[in-house]
């Protein structure tokens, strides 16, 4: 988006424009890691956040270069720590994949993000 928003700061004494707030939940680590090149398709995606998340309202999906979505159902059992989200991954084709996640933190914020990894041919 073109930075016309910056103009508004000039008259911020009067009013400001609405815009999204900053991210709240932080992705601290993941498996596969961001930008890694894998030799075999991962069986799960693991995401660890800085705070507790509501797993039933959080989700993960994988998207390839053509925009095809591979569903990755998240585990809904409390067998992991409160800040970790696990998702089962179907066999993936070689190429670049983007992990898109969206979580609902325990204190009521919806946060989303994404990162990429590559699967070697």
């Amino acid at each position, binding site marked *: 988006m073109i930075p016309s928003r*910056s103009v508004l700061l000039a*008259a911020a004494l*009067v009013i400001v424009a*609405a815009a999204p707030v*900053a991210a709240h939940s932080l992705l601290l680590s993941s498996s596969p890691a961001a930008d890694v090149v894998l030799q075999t398709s991962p069986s799960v995606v693991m995401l660890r956040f*800085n705070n507790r998340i509501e797993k*039933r309202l959080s989700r993960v999906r994988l998207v390839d270069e053509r925009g095809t979505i591979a569903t990755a159902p998240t585990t809904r059992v409390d067998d992991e720590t*409160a800040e970790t989200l696990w998702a089962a991954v179907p066999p993936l084709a070689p190429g670049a994949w983007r992990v898109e996640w969206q979580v609902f933190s325990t204190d009521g914020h*919806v946060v989303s993000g994404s990162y990429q990894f590559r699967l070697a041919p």
Partner: protein
Amino acid sequence: MAGFVDVLLRGLILVLTSVALGGVAWLRVVLRAEPHVKPDAPMALALRAIAVATAGAALAQAAVVLVGLGAIADAHGTWPLGAFFQTTFAVTAVVRVMLAATVAVLAATMARRAASGAMWTALTTTATLLVASSAIVSHAVARVEWRMPLVALDAAHQVAAALWVGGLAHLVLYAIANGRSGASQPRRISNRPPAVRAGLAALATTNMPDYTSLNVPAVIRRFSTLAFWSMVAIVAAGLALTFAYVGDPGALVGTAYGVMVLSKVTLLVPALALAYVNMRVARRASAAPGARLGSFVEVELGLGITILFAAASLTSLPPAVDVTTDRASVAEVAARFTPTAPRLTSPPIDELLRTADPLMGRQLERKPVERAWSEYNHHWAGLFVVTMGALAMLHFVGVRPARHWPLVFLGLATFLFVRNDPRAWPLGPAGFWESLTLPDVLQHRTFVLLVVAFAIFEWMVRTQRLAERPWGYVFPMLCAVGGGLLLTHSHAMFNLKDEFLTEVTHAPLGIFGAFAGWGRWLEVRLPAAGPAPGWIWRGCFTTVGLILLFYREG
């Protein structure tokens, strides 16, 4: 957008629930309300204020639930009601709606008739739970470690803040209501000692709220004591929370969360100074406390409300202690505040149009030409604001023609209109009407209209076409509200560090905006305070311009 609304609603809830709990303390501790006694006029007023505030809090809390649910539905494409209403957040929020509604009904009932001891206990308990339960929808409840101690600390922090800000709100409310019933003043004056009569006479001539009709200075002293211990608790719990959520000094300046904590502290310092002055006045007030106390209390309340909105914005930021890889260094932050020559020449519009992201697209990276465009806009806008500040100072020292300084806002509005988006008319390919169909452009042009309206309005006040009272209060209120909103406002960008460094100047802009507003408020409200408030607001206003003039994105 949903995030910004969420922060505003959370800030509003903090203010409204503070009015509730602070009001209960005001009634029980300051006015010494007793069970089985029909409330007198001041007590009934406080109870009605509590009822209205908590009714508003119930609605705002319900709206927060809907905003959260809407955000999930938007992401999922469905409405997962069952799963949502099993979450800690939703359960707590629903309970808070019920608590707020209970307080509203209790307070409205008690305002009309004598209440039993059980009703007073119920009111006190539900109001306290309403405020304390805010900790269960805060960072504390989502922490992986030290969860319960942090919930307890956060609850204590919020209860103390509610007692302080809510108590101030009731003090101001009482004074305003009492000032309106000024018909009885002559009779009251005649019954007072000479010193009190002098104070009341001064109030009558300046049409100030009558704080002296709290009658006994002991009442103000009781409030002063309550406010003092509330402040002690605020600071003590705040220090512990800062240690837990910020961690080390580097995070205070290198993360958005840390800077917001610093902003709260910066706003708290003058509030504390005013509180100290008010406390001294109250404790030696064998005579009338006078108009100075009244105006200072209003400013203290205003700063307190701004702090509550800054606190609400903290809920949307990741705790600084968690931000390790995306943290900015002190040198990087300092670089953003190091003045360089303003960029007063526009980057080529053609290049900007070629390289910029689609107008409605998500920003994926900040390109150099976009940075140049942004800095250019900031710098010209800063030039307008500095010019207004300088003219306002000249007017203050007696240069009469400089009183027309608000008209410079028209220049700023013209600049905003022309430059608000390079893709829109008159710079870009999108025609005038076509560009108005774009939400961003429509938003900006609506804003331009507001600036034009405000320029004419304030000019009419300065040239005495409109009376300074009450119209002179509009400018400081807008400054204070704008400053507060700026503290709650941020943009989603590429990563936390970029976002933080781009917006690190928002915090001082918001703070100086709030200070300018409350300085001007004092200038209008308390002419006897001398030139200091006038210099304060003009200085802060000019500083806002200077920050814009030297704004840097790289």
